[in-house]
């Protein structure tokens, strides 16, 4: 059955940064240059073809963009400057918007003004809310103790409520991702296979071992450091917030990990920002507005976090509380808007895609193997 092509797709993806895809004339150099491109997932050429032709459904169910870590080898080899690496990146943005059922993601990717306004609005709401709570329940001069402006128990409860909502949104999007790529596809993967290979998920999540297969190792190291720092910080805050906020004694096991994570976050985000400003590497040459917003927010949150901590430990309770407010005004918009709707979501999508693609690949190979004798019989 022929598929109806949608000629508007290229124009649509242009908003996500895929404008150069039209230059591609399918020499295939990119797929040859890519260290990951292996049967049955030969990319990026074929994904680029789906996009050019406007095969929207094919592209929506396509996991290949997530298999790419954007080492930039393909873009460097492209004779027509079609920027395959950036096109794959753009397709990841577009897929993020497709997985999101609310339409908010699409809005943010298409208009940075909308995203920025949403960030400012959420930040102001957060600031006002926390200010009101602090003023009615504590004293701004006290960071900890019974009169604490923002008691850790309150923030902790807030974090868990917010976390729950965001996780629900993210899981819904992940379910949609599964439906597009696996559920409605004709490739049938038995449930037992899902279970048998489930270990792939944490492995890809924690090691990003595929990224290491790229010829350049430094991007992998920076990316891994950033991700591990982020996850460490998330775990520390979600489970051990009290250990940081209460004093005066310092719980070193928590704090040393926290400091390490902070160094990782600041170091990696400064490295990435500097790279994007200088366009020092292929994968830093093109920056979508969402890339800037993500990195700036990350750096802002890490810096305000460590500064409020330092002020607290040096006894400047008043100033520490103000910085804490400022910190929360960064953290909440970052999590609320980035986790389900923007760049942060790839933390979930990418390992999922690795997992799904392994299942899909095995199913395709099995199907080919079972089809092979029939072909041979026909040939005979």
């Amino acid at each position, binding site marked *: *059955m*022929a*598929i*109806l*092509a949608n*000629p*508007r797709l*290229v*124009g649509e993806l242009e908003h996500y940064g895929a404008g150069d895809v*039209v*230059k*591609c*004339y*399918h020499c295939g150099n990119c797929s040859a240059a890519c260290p990951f491109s292996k049967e049955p997932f030969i990319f990026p050429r*074929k994904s680029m*073809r*789906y996009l*050019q*032709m*406007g*095969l929207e459904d*094919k592209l929506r169910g396509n996991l290949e963009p997530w298999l790419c870590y954007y080492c930039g080898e393909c873009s460097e080899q492209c004779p*027509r400057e079609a920027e395959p690496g950036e096109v794959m990146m753009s397709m990841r943005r577009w897929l993020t918007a497709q997985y999101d059922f609310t339409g908010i993601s699409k809005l943010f990717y298409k208009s940075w003004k909308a995203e920025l306004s949403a960030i400012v609005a959420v930040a102001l709401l957060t600031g006002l809310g926390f200010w009101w709570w602090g003023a009615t329940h504590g004293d701004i001069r006290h960071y900890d103790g019974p009169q604490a402006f923002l008691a850790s128990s309150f923030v902790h409860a807030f974090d868990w409520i917010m976390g729950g909502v965001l996780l629900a949104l993210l899981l819904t999007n992940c379910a949609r991702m599964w439906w597009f790529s696996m559920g409605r596809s004709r490739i049938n993967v038995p449930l037992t296979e899902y279970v048998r290979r489930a270990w792939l998920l944490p492995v890809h999540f924690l090691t990003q071992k595929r990224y290491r297969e790229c010829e350049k190792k430094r991007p992998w190291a920076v990316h891994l450091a950033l991700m591990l720092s982020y996850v460490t910080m998330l775990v520390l805050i979600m489970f051990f917030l009290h250990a940081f906020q209460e004093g005066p004694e310092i719980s070193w096991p928590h704090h040393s990990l926290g400091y390490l994570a902070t160094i990782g976050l600041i170091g990696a985000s400064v490295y990435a920002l500097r790279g994007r400003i200088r366009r020092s590497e292929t994968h830093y040459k093109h920056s979508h507005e969402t890339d800037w917003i993500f990195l700036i927010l990350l750096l802002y949150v890490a810096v305000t976090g460590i500064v409020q901590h330092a002020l607290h430990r040096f006894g400047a309770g008043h100033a520490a509380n103000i910085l804490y407010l400022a910190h929360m005004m960064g953290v909440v918009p970052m999590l609320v808007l980035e986790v389900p709707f923007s760049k942060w979501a790839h933390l979930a999508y990418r390992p999922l895609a690795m997992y799904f693609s392994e299942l899909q690949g095995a199913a395709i190979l099995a199907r080919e193997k079972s089809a092979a004798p029939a072909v041979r019989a026909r040939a005979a």
Partner: protein
Amino acid sequence: MEERRIGVYVCNCGTNIAKMVDCEAVAREAEQLPGVVAARSYKYMCSNPGQEMIQQDIRDLKLDRVVVAACSPRMHELTFRGALQGAGLNPYFLEMANIREQCSWVHEDARAATSKAAALTRAAVKRVVFHEPLEKRYVDMCPATLVIGGGVAGITAALELAGADQPVYLVEREDHLGGNVARVDLTAPYLDSARDILAERIARVRENSNIRVLLESEVQQVTGFVGNFTATIRTGRDGEVATTEARIGSVIVCTGYQPFDAARVQSYGYGWFPNVVTSFDFERMLRSGRIVTDKGAPPRYVAIVHCIGSRSQEFHPYCSRVCCMTALKYAHEAKSALPEAYVYDLYIDMHAFGKGCEDFYRRSAEIKTIFLMYRKGSAPEIRQAGPKYDCEMLIRVNDQLSGEEVDIPADLVVLMVGMESREDAGKVARMVNISQDKDGWFIESHPKLDPVATTTDGVFIAGACQAPKDITDSVAQARAAAARILGKIARGRIEVDAVFAEVDEERCSGCRMCNELCPYVAIEYDETKKRSHVISALCKACGTCVASCPSGAIKARHFTDQQIFAQIEGVL
């Protein structure tokens, strides 16, 4: 028979001959033949030292005949004839034995190849004994030229010749000059206006007193030979008809091409779907500045389909060369006229070989033309779209670059019709005595080295009548043909090869059998004498008439029976 003094020169051709033939042995064997006074082998006989060696021997050993055993005479016969002449010998006292193309290159057994080379050399030695001194002859060159066809090639050739103050008859069938280019809007790849290109040139043709433009005219007949043709041109249609007799020295055929009839490919529904048009229909829309469907609305989806009638086993196997870039030109023009429209380009292979063309292809992609690659033999299918679609038609394409079968929307489909030789090209070919290939295109003298001359001296071809060609190449050919003619005019007379057939009037019975057989129409029948005679300027010395003459009245100079029998005897 007086004793000859023959020199035999065996060329090694580097290793081309020497690797398979023992050249020294061939020379030694030739040395034993009667009349041979010197036989040498040398690395490169055609080189200056090689030629000087022959000339030295001619002077020192008083040679009167020379045999060169080397490559094909097509390659170096003129070189060695020149060497003979330089040493004061009649150039026709040379005979070549082809021991390269007919020997070393085609054999694998060195001993057998050597013995064959020796046999060929022996045959040449036997033959050269009977060579006669021949003298070149000259005929007058009339400076006027007949240009058939007033398209861009014809106009260019006429201007080039007239610019050198030579008279030109420019004959055009239509009532205006410009040919197919006059039907075109912009040109690829620089998007210059065809109208601008033509208007200026046509104005110059009109102003030039050396050019006589004959519109609504056709050449009826061309007689005579190089430098001395007479053309009969008929002007006017029905009713008033005038006839012009023109004395001319050369002819340039610039009759161009005709577009392929798209209705012949039924799957595209040309003539059935109102919004399926040909490239020339689309040019008309572009020129009028109104790109619309039959409903009068601007199309939202324009699909351009390549290779209509070209590169197909069913119609024409060849590539029409200009359609790919013309299609890209349409993509540019459609996008600029209808910025909101989506343009699809359905191709088999994109041929972007010309200067600036690859860049043009790239720019066509950058303006978001959607390219789909279909397979030769699996043509896209067009069908009416139902009411649930926002387009007039759907085109089903099996895209080769994704392996997916897709339906694409289309409001207007442009079929890139290929070029084919004109229906009446055969008539023109017979009139000026040139040949056509299996597709009807006129055949040039040599595809690489002599692309505008034909096998008939004085008749040249330029433009798309030779093969599908763009404006650039047509203009280049027209200028090349003009330059060839101006060279002849500058010399004032034409050298005629001394090798041709002669009729012995005493023995000719006037049966006229040879008149019909001569492939070069070089034999005339004299009604008063009741005898045939050969127009030496037209004769190519093929020997057909010699073999056919029942009275044995025709003799081919340089190919006498005596010479050929001696050669056969030698090779046996």
